[in-house]
């Protein structure tokens, strides 16, 4: 009776070993350079698309992409463990200071595109527009709005009209951008669902009738709608579009950054230049963001 327990384990171990061998097998081709990219969850999709496309451009360069949040990318840059850190917010002065102290190099800020931070609600939510002030009242610690009826909205088919706030984890650049610009550096109301990625926010909003969340405009799906936004009541209501982002008419427009240690050199330099080239910017645009230059 005891016999089959070890056998199952051995079976498992053999499987793992086999997986390991397979994983190690074909790697290590001749002269590959690896570029490590880490950071913003907002940008992880486009960073991944760049990495894949770059395989065609320069097969000898391997670009490895991971997310975690802008803060995670910048923390990795401070430790010197990545070549590029992506961030959907600007580096803070104390972070720049830490980079200098830890690596002895100056972080170089390269703006690679623009994004509008969109406010998402469920497709069936009848709300048509929202103001930053209302957002603050929903999301801020001292905000008084907890139900949709307080905003004069009746959600059809919802038994409980408590607003389900969907937010981001605190390492997210989107989280900090929203806190700085919408909450004016006040704190978030506790009890929001803090998702670990831009996509998860939109997914949860898409499956929750009474939810409201914020995420990059590139993550819009069929199940959600993006709300046109006004800075305050009476101000012009602007939908998050490419034009409104470029002209900065949309209140929550932001730039997307790539940070490098010192002046980029060699393959990293080539990669960054390629990102800023017409092709790199076209990929950025395909992912729903606004390019820094016209791709035509």
């Amino acid at each position, binding site marked *: *009776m005891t016999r*089959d*327990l070890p056998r*199952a*384990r051995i079976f*498992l171990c053999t499987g793992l070993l086999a997986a390991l061998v397979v994983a190690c097998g074909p790697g290590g081709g001749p002269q590959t350079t690896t570029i490590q990219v880490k950071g913003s969850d907002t940008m992880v999709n486009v960073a991944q698309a760049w990495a894949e496309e770059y395989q065609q451009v320069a097969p000898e360069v391997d670009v490895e992409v991971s997310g*975690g*949040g802008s*803060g*995670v990318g*910048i*923390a990795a840059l*401070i*430790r010197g463990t990545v070549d590029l850190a992506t961030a959907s917010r600007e580096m803070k002065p104390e*972070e720049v200071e*830490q980079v200098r102290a830890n690596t002895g190099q100056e972080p170089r800020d390269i703006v690679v595109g623009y994004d509008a931070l969109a406010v998402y609600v469920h497709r069936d939510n009848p709300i048509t527009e929202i103001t930053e002030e209302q957002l603050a009242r929903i999301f801020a610690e001292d905000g008084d709005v907890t139900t949709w009826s307080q905003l004069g909205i009746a959600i059809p088919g*919802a*038994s*409980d009209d*408590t607003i*389900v706030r969907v937010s981001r*984890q*605190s*390492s997210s650049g989107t989280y*900090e951008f929203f*806190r*700085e610009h919408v909450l004016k*550096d*006040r*704190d978030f109301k*506790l*009890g*929001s*669902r*803090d*998702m*670990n990625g831009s996509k998860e926010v939109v997914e*949860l909003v898409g*499956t*929750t*009738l*009474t*939810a409201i969340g914020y995420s990059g405009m590139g993550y819009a799906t069929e199940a959600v709608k993006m709300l046109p936004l006004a800075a305050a009541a009476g101000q012009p209501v602007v939908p998050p579009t490419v034009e409104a982002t470029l002209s900065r008419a949309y209140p929550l427009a932001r730039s997307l950054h790539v940070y490098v240690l010192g002046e980029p050199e060699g393959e990293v330099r080539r990669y960054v230049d390629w990102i800023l080239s017409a092709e790199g910017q076209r990929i950025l645009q395909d992912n729903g963001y606004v390019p820094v230059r016209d791709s035509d």
Partner: protein
Amino acid sequence: MSEDGQGSQALAAPRPHRSLWAVAGERFLESLIRFSGVSAVIFVLGIFFFVFREAAPVLFAPGFDLGEFLFSTRWYPTSASNVRYGTLALTVGTLSVTALAILLAVPFGLGAAVYISEFCSPRAKETLKIVIELLAAIPSVVWGFIGLTVMSRVIVTLTGAPVGVNLLNGGVILALMSVPIIVSIGEDALKAVPDSYREAAVALGATRWQVVYRVLLPAARNGLLAAVLLGVGRAVGETMAVLMATGHAVQIPHGLLDSVRTLTANIAAELGEAPAGSDHYRVLFLTGLLLFALTFAVNLAADLAVRGVRRR
């Protein structure tokens, strides 16, 4: 030696033939085994020491309030205006998810262990054990994914809750993860009860249920408690699955359908961005210590309970 009797010769004979290597080898093996024996203690102390060393500076910092840390629900580690480190909501999150998981997993786990050990046919037993081993081998991130996608939809449909990732979801997922452990170890414990107990009980005219209830469960209680404790351990320490399934909201839950955040998930989500050596980083290590203390308290309580049962 040659003039000794045959018996004593046989006893004494091996000694001179043992080479220095064999003696040294045996000594070495002996100390190796002894080291393995105490290594668990060394590792526990080592882990505690290193975690404590990372946490200590903030614990003794003048501006740090331990009361706030333990009993405030306000967790604002990266606030731009007013940084506050209150972990009560996280502790309650961990405890509530774990309690729910154990409530669901223990009856199922022990029931399955009793069934596999006592009631089912040998063929069914083999199959069940393999399936349960497989269940135990599913990585936690896969469980989390199931919670996030399948289970959350089921919960929304069945309960009408606005959000499917909540305390109930996390509890069910953790229960599913703990059950295989409880079953495997519980079944081993029941199997370790000598057959003579069963035979004696049957000879006295006990029914199968009476054998299980009056003889096997009391006889195997230490092993069964170990099974439950390891299950609890998995539930308390689980990170990835609860990170994905509980909704990750800092609040004291008022019902099964509220989202919660656990200590472990909070550490996993925030440690990556906290700059090494910052207050936030140290406070996260301090929450690690808190988790350590919680598990220790649970284990100690269970151990005392078993002693109590034994004395009675």
